[in-house]
C-alpha cells in the first residue's frame, strides 16, 4: 500500500492544479455565456436574459442544464467514434493550455521554461478536432466548415507565431512567468508600448484562432448553416462551445501576459489584475463580434498572407537589430 506521504508532491500539485483549472473553465464558461448574452443584448438595445434569477444571472445555468439534458443524436451514416471524440479532442487540450499560465505571482501550475510554445502547441489541436467533427458528421456543410477551418488555420497560425517572436527576442525567455516579470507595473512599462504592431496582429489572429466574428468562417451561420457543428446536439455542441470560450480566455490571457504586463498592476499586483485585463480583452472580443459583418474567406487569407506576415517579419527584423545594437 502506498501511504499518503509517499505520493510525490509535484503530482499532488498537478492534480490540485488540474482541478482548479477545471473549476475555472466551468465558471468561466458560465460567466462568458452570461457576459456574451448581456453585452450582445445591450449592444442590440434589448435587455438580454432577464427571466431566470435577478437580471438573468442564472441563465447560464439554465442553458447548461438544457444542454446536458438534451438527447445526443448521432446522424445516420456518421462515423460514431470519431464523431463523438471530436468534441472531447476539442475540449481536452484547453485544460493543458491553462497549465503554464501565471495567474498571479505565485499562481502558476507548472513553471515550464517553454510555456509559451506549450500553449501554442495544444491550442493548435483545436483545428484537428474541428476537422474530425466536420468530416465525421457526414454532412456536406460540416465538411465545408472543416475545410474552411484548416485553410483558416494555415492563414492565421504563421502570423500568430511570428507576432510572439519580438517579445521572445526582447525578454529572452519562453517562460510566461519571466515574460510577465520583465514588464513593469505601470502601463508604459508594458510591452504593448514597445511592440504595438505585434500586439495588434496577435490580437487579430486570436480572433481567427478562436473562430470568433468577423473570422467565424468555419461556423458562418448564414453561409454554412453552422459549419462543423451543424449536426451536434446536447453536450457534443456544449463541449465545442465550452472549448471556444476556454480558447478565448487562453488567447486573451496570452495577450495579457505577453503585452499587457500579466498580473502586474499599478496598485496591489495580483491575480485580480490579471483577470481584469483578461476579461477586458474578452469584452472587446464580444463587442467586435456583435458589431462587424463576417469577412469573406479569401479576404482573411489576403489579410494574413499579404499584410500580416510581411509586416510582422519586418517588425521582427527591426526588433532583432535593436536588441543586438543596444
Amino acid at each position, binding site marked *: 500500500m502506498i501511504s499518503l506521504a509517499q505520493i510525490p508532491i509535484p503530482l499532488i500539485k498537478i492534480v490540485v492544479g488540474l482541478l482548479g483549472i477545471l473549476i475555472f473553465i466551468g465558471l468561466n464558461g458560465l460567466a462568458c455565456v452570461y457576459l456574451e448574452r448581456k453585452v450582445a443584448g445591450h449592444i442590440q438595445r434589448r435587455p438580454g436574459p432577464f427571466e431566470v434569477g435577478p437580471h438573468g444571472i442564472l441563465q447560464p445555468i439554465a442553458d447548461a442544464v438544457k444542454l446536458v439534458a438534451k438527447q445526443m443524436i448521432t446522424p445516420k451514416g456518421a462515423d460514431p467514434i470519431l464523431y463523438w471524440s471530436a468534441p472531447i479532442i476539442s475540449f481536452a487540450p484547453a485544460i493543458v493550455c491553462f497549465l503554464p499560465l501565471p495567474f498571479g505571482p505565485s499562481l502558476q501550475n507548472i513553471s515550464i521554461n517553454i510555456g509559451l510554445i506549450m500553449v501554442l502547441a495544444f491550442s493548435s489541436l483545436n483545428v484537428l478536432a474541428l476537422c474530425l467533427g466536420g468530416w465525421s458528421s457526414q454532412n456536406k456543410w460540416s465538411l465545408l466548415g472543416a475545410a474552411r477551418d484548416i485553410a483558416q488555420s494555415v492563414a492565421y497560425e504563421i502570423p500568430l507565431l511570428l507576432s510572439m517572436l519580438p517579445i521572445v527576442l526582447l525578454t529572452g525567455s519562453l517562460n510566461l512567468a519571466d515574460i510577465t516579470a520583465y514588464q513593469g507595473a505601470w502601463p508604459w512599462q508594458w510591452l504593448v508600448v514597445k511592440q504595438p504592431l505585434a500586439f495588434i496582429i496577435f490580437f487579430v489572429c486570436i480572433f481567427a484562432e478562436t473562430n470568433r466574428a468577423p473570422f467565424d468562417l468555419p461556423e458562418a451561420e*448564414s453561409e454554412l448553416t453552422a459549419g462543423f457543428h451543424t449536426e451536434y446536439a446536447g453536450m457534443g455542441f456544449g463541449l465545442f462551445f465550452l472549448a471556444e470560450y476556454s480558447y478565448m480566455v487562453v488567447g486573451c490571457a496570452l495577450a495579457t501576459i505577453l503585452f499587457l504586463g500579466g498580473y502586474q498592476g499599478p496598485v496591489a499586483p495580483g491575480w485580480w489584475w490579471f483577470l481584469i485585463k483578461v476579461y477586458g480583452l474578452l469584452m472587446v472580443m464580444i463587442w467586435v463580434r456583435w458589431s462587424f*459583418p463576417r469577412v469573406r474567406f479569401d479576404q482573411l487569407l489576403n489579410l494574413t498572407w499579404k499584410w500580416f506576415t510581411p509586416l510582422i517579419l519586418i517588425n521582427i527584423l527591426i526588433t532583432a537589430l535593436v536588441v543586438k545594437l543596444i
Partner: protein
Amino acid sequence: MLDTTLDSLDLRGDFYTRNFQPHPSENRLILNMGPQHPSTHGVLRVILEIDGEYIVRAEPVLGYIHRMHERMAEVKRYEQYLPNLGRIDYLHALAWNWAYVGAVERLMGLEVPKRAEYIRVITCELNRISSHLLWWGAYLLDLGAFTPIMYAFADREIIMDILQRITGSRLTYCYYRFGGVSQDIDDKFIEQTKELCKYLRPRLKMYKDFVTDNIIFRKRVEGIGIIETEILRKYGATGPVLRGSGIAYDVRKTKPYSVYSEIEFDVPSYELEDAFGRYLVRMQEMEESLKIIEQCLEQLPAGDFILPKAPKRPKPPAGEVYFTVEGARGEIGVHLLSDGSAYPYRLKLRSPSFSNLSLFPEVVKGTLLADAVSILGSLDLVIPEIDR
C-alpha cells in the same frame, strides 16, 4: 465495385437533385442550399454544384410554399379574394392590395376619391419603408452582422404600430377596398406619421455611419454579383435590382398611377451593377419614401375615404386589364380577365421576385459560396411571393 457504389450514391436525392445532374464529376460536390437554410429567408432551395467553394452551377427549386393563389382567385368572389393579396408578399402587402384593387377599379371604371388615393400612397410608402428596413437587417445578417436586424426591427415596429391602428393588422394587411380604403385616417395617425419621419431621418444617417461606411461590409458587397443591363432585360428584372444597375425605371415615375404624378420625388439609381448598388438604391428609397409621405400629409385633401357608391360585391364587365404598381421588390402586375360574372375568369399575378430570382443562376456562376449568399440577399427575395 467501388464505382457502382458511387453511382448508387449519386442517385440519392429527390427528383430535382437527379434532374440537376445524375453524375457529378470528380472533385465536385452537389449541395442543397435549403429548403431550410438561414440565408434563403424562407423555404427556397438552391441546388449548387460547387468546386471547392466556387459555384459552378446553381438551380433554384421553388414551390415549397406554393398555395395556388391563382386558382383560389377563380373560385372566390372578387371581394372574397382581397385577404389573399396580403399573404402573397408579406413584407409589402399593401402594394399587392393596391395592384389587385386597382385592376378591378380600372375594369369597372371606378373613380377613387382624392383623399383615398393620398391615404393609399401614405400607407403604401410606410409599408415600403418597413419592408426595406427588414431587408436591410436580414441582408446584414446574411453577411454575418447580427446587430442591425435588431435595430431594423425596432424601427419597423413603430411603423407596424402606426399601420395597425388604421388597418387592423400588423403584417398581412387588407386595407384597400374597391373605390377607396376601408377606414379613414385620423389626426393621431397623421401626428404619429410626422413623428416617425422626424425620427427615421437621423436613424438612416446612423445606419449609414454604422454599416454603409464599414470597410468589411464594403468589401463584401462591392463588385459582387455584377448584373449587366442585357441580363436584366432578358430576365425582366425590376425594382431596386434594376435601378442598382443604373436604369431609373420606376412605375411610380415612368407610368404614374394614383397621385404619384402630383408628388415630387426622385428615383435613385446607381450605375454600379453590383450588390452595393442595389443596397444604396434601397437605402436611398427609404429617404424618398419619407419625402413622399411628408408631402402627402401636407397635401392631404378632405373628402370621402371611399367612393360612396362603391359596390360591396363587384361584378365587373367582361374584359381584360393589366395593372402594375411599384412594390418594394419591383413591378407588381395583376393581369385580370373577367367574363362578367362575380368570379374572376383568370387572374395572373406577376411577382417581381420571381423574375429577379430567375437571373440568379446566371449571376452566381463562378462566385464563392459566401458571395452567393451576398447576391441572394441583395436580390431581396420574399419566397411566398415567388411561389404564390
